[in-house]
Every structure is written in structure tokens, then in C-alpha cells.
């Protein structure tokens, strides 16, 4: 009776995951979709705790299980609620790492179990190892990605890194095959097993370290689908359909999502992973710093230019997110609107640290949806625009992506702000953007710089416009 109810619960759980993902991919139903999947997950977890049987014996250790659930739940809710909107991407990466670690830990216990019981079936060994390797790579990689986005870890690469990476991977695969086909699960293979774990963690670090911060969203999405596959291995291990569907769905949907993200940047996945930003490319770009002079504009001049314009387009970037300036930005937009200036926002698909980052921020400040232009629409409007105000965006407006084949971001579609009559760029300093490359735009005659923290500058600009 119990087991039949459990299999129905698992069926319902699998269906909610599919429905949830489907609903998450449409703006109207997205939030409900998330809740549907969460409800299915809760059901599947509770069903497992109370109805799952191993050889007709129900699970025990309830005290441990519920304590673990409670601790994890509290940490999860608190960290998810407290995290700032700007730090959302690294939070997702961290959560992903936890999932990967969970899969790897399960493998450790199950392999020891297999060794103790003396059962050596190649298939099981293969599944356990696969879950271990993928989980560990995902965990280590996610933590590095988190550190990079949080600014704690710098890009790091050295000559021959790709060869080392490949070497480590080959050793992992070699040991993997040897364990599965050769020795199976014995006491000696336990040592090899831990070596594989260490190598997989090492590979996860090596794999993410050289990839530039601007590409982190793609990497996180890829690691996300890795963890999905690791979870699916658990499905094989326990003959558990809900783990299998959940894991594989995320694995395949995550892979497609990764490819879509790359497409939004007009780059291939291979290009992101191998021809990474940073390293030699950054050094080359760093050498060409003598690009002439830039000019600054005073707050009052900027206020006048904007107040008497017909059309102003605001290009938000990571600087806006860091300064939490979305509300100030909306105020400015309303004030200009009251003076009869047409104000719109141009949203680059990868502005900020993640696709959709800017949309989320501006939505938080109640900026109406109609005012947000996607890149293609914005580019057709720039030629008829009087003033473009760039708020802490850099790489997404860098003309080198169009003009300079040597640039590491060459080929990435950009917002062609230089088509407008006047460009005002707000930045904190002249430091290059996240990809670590100079931006010609700042040195063009029609560009003026307005230095300072985005929020402070916007507030002062607002006051100045009111007085015009």
C-alpha cells in the first residue's frame, strides 16, 4: 500500500517538475511554475521520508533527517531572503555547488557500502563514480564561480593550462574505467576512489579559474546542468524515477539554456570555455591604453542637455546594480517624462552579471515594462536619440566588439550608443570593465564622462534638472 502511494507521489512529483519548468519559461506563469515545482518537491521529500522502504524495512534515523532538513531549510531561507539583488547570481552558484556536493557525498557513502557488502557490479560502480565525478566538478567549479562573481577570486591562467586540464581529465577517465571494468569495489579501490574525488575537485577548480568573470553566467548554467546529471545518477542508484526525471530535465534544459545564453552574446560555448577572456587576451588589450583624452561634463551641463532633449535612452549596467540606483534612476526618468522628454531604457541581454539582471532591478523600481527596449529595438532608435545616458555599463557598449577583430569581445552584439547625438557615461572611474578591456567609446568626441557613484550622481542630476 505504502509503496504504491509512493510511486504515485513520485509520478506527481515528476509531472510538477515538467509543468514547473514549462511555466517558468513564460513571463505570465513563471512565478506559479516555481511554486508548482516547489510543491512537487515537498511532496516527493515527505513521501520518501515516510513511505520509502529498503527491503521492506522503512527508513529510520528520523531525528537526524529532520534536524538536517531543519538546519538546511533555515540556512537556505535566510541566505535566499537576505541576499541583495546584485548578489543573486553568486547565490545561485553557491546553491548549485551545494547540490553537487550533496551528490558527491551520497556517492562516498554508497561506494563504502558497496565495498563493505562485497558486491561488485560494474554498472553500479559506474553510476556511483559518475555521480561522484560530476558532483565534485560542479561543486568545486560553482564555488570558484561564486568567488569570482563576489570579487573574491581573480582570473587566473598560465601557459599550458588547457593541457593540464586535459591531462587531469584523462587521468580521471582512466581511473574511472579501471575501477569500473577492472577491480570493482574492493578495499584497494577505495583509495583510488578518493583519488578520483580529489582529482575531480581539482579539475572543477582548474576548469573555471581561467574563464573571465563576464562569462560566469554561462559557466554557472553549465554547472547547473552538470548537477542535474549528478542527481539523475542517484535516480539510477536508487531506482528512483523522480530523481531521474528531475535530474535529467535540468541536465538537458540547462544545456539548452547555456547554449541560448551563449547565443545572446553571439559566441559559441567552445569559445567561452576555451578562448576565455583574461589571460593573453586581457594582457594584449591592456597594452593599448594610450587612446587619447576623455572629457568630463559637469552635473549642471548634463542636466541641461537632458532636460532639453526630445529623446533620452538610459543604458543600465552593473554599476547601476552595485550602487542600488534603480529607484533614483526611475525618479530621474519620471522627472524627465514630466518635462515632456521621451525616456526609454535599452537593455542588453547580458548587461549586469546575468541575463535579465537589469530587467529584474528595474522592475523592482516599478519601471513600466513598455519603457524597456531589447537590444535590436534600441539599436534602431539610437540614431534618433538626443542623449544616451550610460549608467555603469561598459563592455556592452564597447564599439571594439564591432570594429576590432583582435578584441576578446569581438563579435558580441552591442548597444550602438555612438549613433546618438550625445553620449553621457556615468562610471566610478576610468577603470576598464569586467572583461578587462579598454573602451574606445569613452574617448570619442561626442562622449562625456560623469564620474561618481551611480546613485549619488542620479540624485544630484535629478535635483539639477528640477532647477533647470
Amino acid at each position, binding site marked *: 500500500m505504502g509503496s504504491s502511494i509512493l510511486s504515485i507521489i513520485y509520478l506527481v512529483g515528476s509531472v510538477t517538475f515538467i509543468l514547473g519548468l514549462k511555466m517558468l519559461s513564460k513571463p505570465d506563469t513563471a512565478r506559479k511554475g516555481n511554486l508548482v515545482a516547489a510543491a512537487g518537491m515537498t511532496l516527493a521529500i515527505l513521501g520518501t521520508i515516510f513511505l520509502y522502504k529498503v527491503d521492506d524495512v522503512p527508513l529510520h534515523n528520523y531525528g537526524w533527517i529532520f534536524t538536517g532538513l531543519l538546519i538546511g531549510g533555515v540556512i537556505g531561507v535566510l541566505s*535566499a531572503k537576505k541576499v541583495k539583488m546584485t548578489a543573486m547570481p553568486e547565490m545561485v552558484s553557491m546553491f548549485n555547488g551545494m547540490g553537487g556536493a550533496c551528490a558527491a557525498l551520497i556517492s562516498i557513502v554508497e561506494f563504502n557500502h558497496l565495498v563493505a557488502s562485497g558486491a561488485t557490479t560494474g554498472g553500479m560502480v559506474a553510476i556511483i563514480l559518475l555521480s561522484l565525478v560530476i558532483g565534485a566538478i560542479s561543486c568545486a567549479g560553482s564555488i570558484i564561480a561564486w568567488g569570482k562573481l563576489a570579487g573574491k577570486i581573480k582570473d587566473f591562467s598560465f601557459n599550458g593550462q588547457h593541457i593540464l586540464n586535459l591531462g587531469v581529465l584523462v587521468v580521471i577517465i582512466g581511473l574511472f574505467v579501471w575501477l569500473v571494468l577492472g577491480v570493482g569495489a574492493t578495499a584497494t579501490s577505495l583509495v583510488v576512489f578518493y583519488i578520483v574525488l580529489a582529482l575531480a575537485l581539482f579539475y572543477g577548480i582548474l576548469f573555471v579559474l581561467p574563464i573571465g568573470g563576464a562569462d560566469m553566467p554561462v559557466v554557472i548554467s553549465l554547472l547547473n546542468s552538470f548537477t542535474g546529471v549528478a542527481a539523475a545518477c542517484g535516480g539510477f542508484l536508487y531506482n528512483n524515477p523522480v530523481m531521474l526525471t528531475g535530474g535529467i530535465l535540468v541536465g538537458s534544459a540547462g544545456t539548452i539554456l547555456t547554449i541560448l545564453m551563449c547565443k545572446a552574446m553571439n559566441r559559441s560555448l567552445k569559445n567561452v570555455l576555451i578562448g576565455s577572456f583574461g589571460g593573453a587576451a586581457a594582457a594584449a588589450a591592456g597594452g593599448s591604453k594610450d587612446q587619447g583624452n576623455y572629457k568630463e561634463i559637469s552635473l549642471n551641463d548634463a542636466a541641461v542637455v537632458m532636460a532639453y532633449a526630445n529623446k533620452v535612452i538610459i543604458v543600465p549596467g552593473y554599476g547601476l546594480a552595485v550602487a542600488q540606483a534603480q529607484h533614483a534612476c526611475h525618479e530621474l526618468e519620471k522627472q524627465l517624462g514630466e518635462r515632456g522628454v521621451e525616456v526609454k531604457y535599452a537593455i542588453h541581454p547580458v548587461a549586469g552579471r546575468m541575463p535579465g539582471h537589469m530587467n529584474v532591478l528595474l522592475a523592482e523600481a516599478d519601471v513600466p515594462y513598455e519603457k524597456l527596449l531589447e537590444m535590436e529595438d534600441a539599436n534602431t532608435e539610437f540614431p534618433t536619440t538626443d542623449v544616451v545616458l550610460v549608467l555603469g555599463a561598459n563592455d556592452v557598449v564597447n564599439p571594439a566588439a564591432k570594429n576590432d577583430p583582435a578584441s576578446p569581445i569581438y563579435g558580441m552584439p552591442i548597444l550602438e550608443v555612438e549613433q546618438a547625438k550625445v553620449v553621457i557615461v556615468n562610471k566610478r572611474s576610468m577603470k576598464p570593465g569586467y572583461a578587462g578591456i579598454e573602451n574606445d567609446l569613452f574617448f570619442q568626441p561626442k562622449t562625456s564622462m560623469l564620474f561618481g557613484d551611480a546613485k549619488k550622481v542620479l540624485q544630484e542630476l535629478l535635483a539639477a534638472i528640477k532647477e533647470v
Partner: protein
Amino acid sequence: MEYILSFLHQHIDLIYIVILSIFLGVEVISRVPSVLHTPLMSGANAIHGVVIIGAIIVMGKAEADNYLALIIGFLAVILGTINVVGGFVVTDRMLEMFKGKKK
């Protein structure tokens, strides 16, 4: 070779699920607007937290004197729960803001 075949045979229904799920995953999200990339990724991130079920099973079948399984399983339950709960809450927070702009 023989045991690979028999392994496949034993798990053939699971393999069907895998193959169908792969195509389903691709179909389900193939036309998603770029605005939703981040929430979708975050939602998918929460869903792979289903690995928690494996952790619960490890924990629940561990004998009272098997400290390795108990300790590692306990840790796995905590990490898995953080993944699930945190993942869904973060996604909800992101999407809450999308809803606000509709009004």
C-alpha cells in the same frame, strides 16, 4: 560486455525515462525570452535539488553504528536542503519583481 548488456536490460525502463526526459527538457524551454534566463536557471537549480531524496535514503537506511554514513549523510541532507529551499526562495524573489511591473 555481458554484464553491461544485462545492466542495460535491468534498467531499461529507467533508460527510457532518461531519453524521453532529455527531449522533453529541450522542448520545454526552447523558446524562452532572455529576460527569463536567470529565473529559469535558478528554478532549474532548485529542481536538481531533488538529489536530497538520495541523501534522505542514505541517512534513513544507515545502521546506528555506521558513523561514516550517518555523518556524511547528515551533511548531504543539510546541503541538499539548502539547494532546494534556497533555490526555490531565490527564484520566487526574482519573479516577485517581475510580477510587480505588470500592475
